[in-house]
């Protein structure tokens, strides 16, 4: 029993690491632009299908093809912000949400038309590889890599945001766009580039999540909702909080799936979300 428990918690930690990666990039774009991008998860799907295409065409391993997918997604993120979101950023929040929902439909069904609706697996050399700790703890190597990747990226994000000039500009735009503009910061430029990076990170997340996970065009919504929950539970602009909340969602999901029968186990993270909203609406780790 305890073995199963430990195995489940570790599994949840690893899955949560993957969620954290997506949640952090969502948090980055939200905090700098003030826009919740409901198509965020669909860009992850896009990245995964690009990796699939590259693997079929040139037999590139998803880890390697990030070199190609990252710039592609960066450019599409920049284009998304510059051409679609920037013009409406000042109008009602409702309209912006609608617009990103429209982007969701375009991406989801565009992918559906090109690749078809059947779930597919992207073959990877790492897929079946296992790490064995002690005598009973089995870890799937790709998941360990994904977890390590998310930690590394979180660290990198922290260093950039807290200790570099670029980070200072980004934080300035987040805290007070007007004052930032008066200080000579090119606000639209900072926002556009940050959006590009945020979407670009999805290429890395996609590569890290791909091994062993079947992908399908309609999955994007789930990869928007769970990171969004992490974002809100973490307290919106507190990156440590977002990271921990994403891990927590991963762990509760794993525990729910193993210890609650059937699909109702998958409800546990959502129930947790509703509970957190009821009891700590300011975010899990924030003082009221």
């Amino acid at each position, binding site marked *: 029993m305890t073995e199963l428990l430990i195995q489940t918690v570790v599994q949840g930690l690893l899955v949560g690491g993957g969620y954290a990666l997506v949640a952090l990039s969502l948090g980055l774009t939200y905090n700098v632009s003030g826009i919740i991008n409901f198509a965020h998860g669909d860009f992850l799907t896009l990245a995964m299908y690009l990796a699939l295409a590259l693997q079929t065409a040139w037999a590139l391993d998803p880890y390697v093809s990030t070199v190609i997918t990252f710039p592609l997604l960066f450019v599409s993120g920049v284009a998304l912000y510059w051409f*679609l979101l920037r013009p409406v950023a000042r109008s009602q929040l409702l309209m912006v949400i609608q617009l990103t929902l429209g982007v*969701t439909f375009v991406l989801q069904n565009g992918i559906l038309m090109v690749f078809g609706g059947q779930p597919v697996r992207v073959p990877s050399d790492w897929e079946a590889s296992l790490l064995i700790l002690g005598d009973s703890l089995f870890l799937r190597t790709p998941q360990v890599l994904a977890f390590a990747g998310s930690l590394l990226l979180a660290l990198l994000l922290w260093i950039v945001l807290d200790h570099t000039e670029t980070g200072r500009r980004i934080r300035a735009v987040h805290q007070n766009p007007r004052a930032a503009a008066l200080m000579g910061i090119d606000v639209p430029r900072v926002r556009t580039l940050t959006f590009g990076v945020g979407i670009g990170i999805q290429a890395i997340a996609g590569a890290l999540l791909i091994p062993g996970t079947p992908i399908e065009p309609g999955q994007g919504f789930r990869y928007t909702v769970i990171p969004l929950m992490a974002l809100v539970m973490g307290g919106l602009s507190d990156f440590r909080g977002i990271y921990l909340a994403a891990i927590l969602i991963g762990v509760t999901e794993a525990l729910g799936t193993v210890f609650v029968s059937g699909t109702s186990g998958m409800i546990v993270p959502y129930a947790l979300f509703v509970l957190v*909203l009821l009891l700590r609406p300011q975010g899990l780790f924030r003082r009221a």
Partner: protein
Amino acid sequence: MRPDFFQFLRSPLLWIPVAIAACLPWGLSAYHLAIGTLALLYVSLALAWNVVGGIAGQISLANSVFVGTGALLASALYIRLGIDMWFGMVIAAAVSAILGVFMSLLDARFRLGHLSFALVTLAFAEIGELVVAGTDFLGGASGLDLPKDHGRFWLFEFGGGPGYFWAALVLALICLVVNQAILSSRLGYYLRALRDNEDAAQAIGIELFRSKATGMAISAALSSVAGTLFARYSNFVDPTLLASPNLTIEIVLIATIGGLGTPLGPLIAALVLIPVGEILRGQFGGTLPGLHFFLYGVLIIVVVLTSPQGIVPRLLSLRRRFRRA
């Protein structure tokens, strides 16, 4: 209730189109009649959504939960317990309304404005899909088959194409009248005041939670009834279709393309977009699945960028300008 509501009820602009629509079953082929029925069901769904999304200005992403409740709960009660579907429809509508009020309650506690409401309702949409998939009583992931329709009206059977078309027409008409009634009543003014400036509205004594919860309950109940009718009409409840968040997004996009706030926008958008979508699906469904959704997506992006108030209000203002010139 303002007098213009009764003017609206007496207006020939309302009854002449309804009378023409009511004659359609004698002129249309079965295929086109089915498209018409679907369009009318979407009119109901878009108008039900408009109460919360348009008049109150809150992005609700949980309407699939209400439609799913109406479809699955009423069907399950009928199949498993033999409860008459008229009664089941009322039970499901009541359950949906209670769920809607609960969501408003969560939203009122967690005040982040539009974002929190979108999130809370979105979480419920996901929960709803999972609950349905995990509950055998509701048919699980495989859905529910309803027994054959023998045209027994007291058992919620409308006997074939024309019957369901008229039923859908009546429901769409009810939704339209409810929208208009809300707009010209106290509640409509409260909701619009809250939409335009929440703090100012509360400062002059409008109760935030009570107004929003009422709007949400009405929207949820209407969506649920449309779900019940949809289930009986198609004889089969497909949970991946009715309980999935995609349905909600479709409704939201249709209503927004048409123009929010007034009933005319969602009404016309559903009447135009659903038939176009269905015909596209009929033509390209085999080779390019999802083409009609793709086009909806492109259309909404164009509409938000060029005329954020929606196409129908835009056309109306163009016509006014044209007349003046």
